């Protein structure tokens, strides 16, 4: 029984084994298949991941290439820009080369005047100068630093009153001493000028002919100083007088020691030194209104057989120039007055005036020469300025005689460097050679080269 049981048991075991073997093999196959599918799936996923990595790497490479390319481009452009600015900054030498840097800045000014007169006018050489066209002046302005202590200015002019005759002159030639080796800081901002220059008498004398708001100088200037104003050799010092109580104002004084003579009121060339002082107060109101008041005195002591001479003057200027519209609208009103304390029978007279009159009213010791000149100017637009000047003066040699004129004018600036002007002048005078003279004037002024500085208010 046991054997049977053992046999049955063994048989059952064998059957079970036999039955189970295919199932086991079948299970192994499906597992392999699933594993295979899993591997395939993983391979696909891996493939996708690898392709994604490739794609990302490509994108990254592409982007980094772009960035590198951009950086390279930036660098190369920077180099190019640097290279391009090299000639550009080296092109500055077009303005100022290394050699040119040591040469002066040069400007040339040409001034052409055409006139039509109703009366004959003769100059001091006896030449007629009425009703003609004339290159009145050609001026060469040179200026440059001499060294750290001084700047130099030389202005040579060729002038003509007509007839093709020109006279050459040094209109100004001086050095501006800005500081001294033994004085780091000059007191009161002292500036020294040594040489030949236009003395600081009044407001208009320091202006060159081409800078004047009108074609000719005023009758007042002609009478007291001369047709071309006052030019003399000497030493000039300008300094500030502090005004700490008012920061919007300025007070400055100019003291000058000059060679005597060459002045209408004191023409004697053998005269000794003369002295000139000018005091100016300037204030700005509300940024747009400027007011300037000045006092001038000229004194030449007696000596060398020549008597003393002196004359004095006041000048004023009001300027309205709005901040925003300042280049389009402005207004100027100013003038000068001069007086002397006695007559000057020996005074030189303007070249276009013949003293064709008997000195019937001459009364030395009592009358005093006096004159005034007023002008106003309105700016219509960026280019056009219109104004009028009125002059009144007693003659130096006979204060009983007076001269008057009125001069309306219109200036048109084609540019800062080219100006056309038309004007008319009518004179009333006790000197019959100029009485009721009518003059129509056309003026063209041009500047080429570097532009010299002008006084702060000139024309505009």
């Amino acid at each position, binding site marked *: 029984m046991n054997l049977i049981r053992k046999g049955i048991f063994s048989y059952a075991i064998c059957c079970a084994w036999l039955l189970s073997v295919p199932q086991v093999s079948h299970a192994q196959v499906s597992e392999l298949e699933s594993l295979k599918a899993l591997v395939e799936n993983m391979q696909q996923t891996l493939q996708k991941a690898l392709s994604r990595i490739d794609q990302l790497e490509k994108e990254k490479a592409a*982007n980094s290439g*772009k*960035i590198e390319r*951009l*950086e390279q*481009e*930036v660098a190369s*452009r*920077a180099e190019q*820009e*640097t290279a391009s*600015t090299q000639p*550009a*900054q080296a*092109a*500055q030498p*077009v*303005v100022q080369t290394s050699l040119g840097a040591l040469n002066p800045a040069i400007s040339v000014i040409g001034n052409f005047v055409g006139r039509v007169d109703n009366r004959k006018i003769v100059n001091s050489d006896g030449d007629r100068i009425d009703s003609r066209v004339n290159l009145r002046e050609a001026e060469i302005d040179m200026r440059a630093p001499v060294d*750290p202590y001084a*700047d130099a200015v030389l202005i040579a002019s060729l002038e003509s009153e007509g007839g093709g005759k020109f006279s050459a002159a040094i209109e100004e030639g001086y050095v*501006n001493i*800005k*500081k001294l080796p033994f004085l*780091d*800081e*000059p007191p*009161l*901002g*002292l*500036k020294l000028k040594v040489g030949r220059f236009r003395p600081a008498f009044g407001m208009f004398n320091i202006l060159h002919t081409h800078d004047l708001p009108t074609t000719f100088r005023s009758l007042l200037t002609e009478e007291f100083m001369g047709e071309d104003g006052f030019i003399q050799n000497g030493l000039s010092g*300008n*300094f*500030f007088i502090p*005004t700490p109580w008012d*920061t*919007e*104002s*300025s007070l*400055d004084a100019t003291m000058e020691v000059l060679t005597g003579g060459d002045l209408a009121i004191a023409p004697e060339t053998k005269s000794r030194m003369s002295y000139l002082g000018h005091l*100016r107060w*300037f*204030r*700005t109101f509300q*940024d747009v209104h*400027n007011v*300037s008041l000045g006092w001038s005195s000229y004194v030449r002591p007696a000596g060398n057989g020549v008597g003393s001479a002196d004359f004095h003057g006041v000048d004023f200027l009001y300027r309205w*120039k709005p*901040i*925003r519209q*300042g*280049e389009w609208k402005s207004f100027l009103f100013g003038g000068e007055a001069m007086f002397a304390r006695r007559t000057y029978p020996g005074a030189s007279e303007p070249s276009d005036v013949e003293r064709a009159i008997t000195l019937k009213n001459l009364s030395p010791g009592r009358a005093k020469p006096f004159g005034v000149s007023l002008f106003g100017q309105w700016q219509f637009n960026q280019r056009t300025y219109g104004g009028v000047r009125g002059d009144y003066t007693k003659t130096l040699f006979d204060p009983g005689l007076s001269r008057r004129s009125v001069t309306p004018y219109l200036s048109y600036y084609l*540019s*800062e*460097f080219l100006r056309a002007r038309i004007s008319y002048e009518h004179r009333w005078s006790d000197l019959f050679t100029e009485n009721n003279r009518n003059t129509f004037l056309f003026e063209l002024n041009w500047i*080429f080269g570097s*532009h010299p*500085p002008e006084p*702060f*208010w000139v024309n505009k």
Partner: protein
Amino acid sequence: MKPKISLVILFALAVLHLAPAVAIAQERKVKVVCTLPTLKALTEEVGGNRVDVIALAKGDQDPHFVTPTPVLMQKTRQADLFIENGFSLELWADQVANGSGNTKIFRGTPGRIVAGNGVAAMEIPAVLTREMGDIHPQGNPHVWLDPLLAKVEAGNIAEALKSADPTGASFYDSRKADFFRRIDNALFGPELLKLVGIQKLTRLAWSKELHPFLQSNKVDGQPFTACGLISPASSASSWSGPLRSDPAFRPGRSIFSR
């Protein structure tokens, strides 16, 4: 007792004597005269309370045509530094400086500062002739309109202040750094600064590549979006307004956001 009283009095006198000097030394500010209000603003940013600064031109005044009046010369007389933009913009500056009689600010002296030094000139005329009209021979002078170039000017001003006032060097440096940081943040934003860096941004901006650079790059998968262009690149060449030549209106200068 008497020696003690004497010592106390002596000490008090010494203190009283020194106190004003110390106060003056503390209150002594660098006096700066600037030609333009923009330069004044830059100087105040860098100089803070160590400088006393004025501008000669008004904000609404054409800087080309400032009248060199005696009042301007008077105001300039005590200046330690005279700061101008340069590029032949302020042709009136020499007249003011020379007229002041202040030797510290004459051209060529350490007190005369050209803020535009180091800025590469743009639009330099190929030919210098008056036929071209009123030209700037040294190139476009309006450099301060570009904030990045204004930084260059502020840097020059800081160096000048450090030379004039060496004891305040660290003060000026820190204020300059703070000013630069504020400009950079305002111009590019802190996020862009962190991602790209100010040096690269500056290079890209100066080379007019900032716009394409930002357009072609993404951060965190998000592209930069141009909110607008100060001057459209496509129409820049046909721009005929007066601002065409200004550096701030270079084509491609854009405002970006994310």
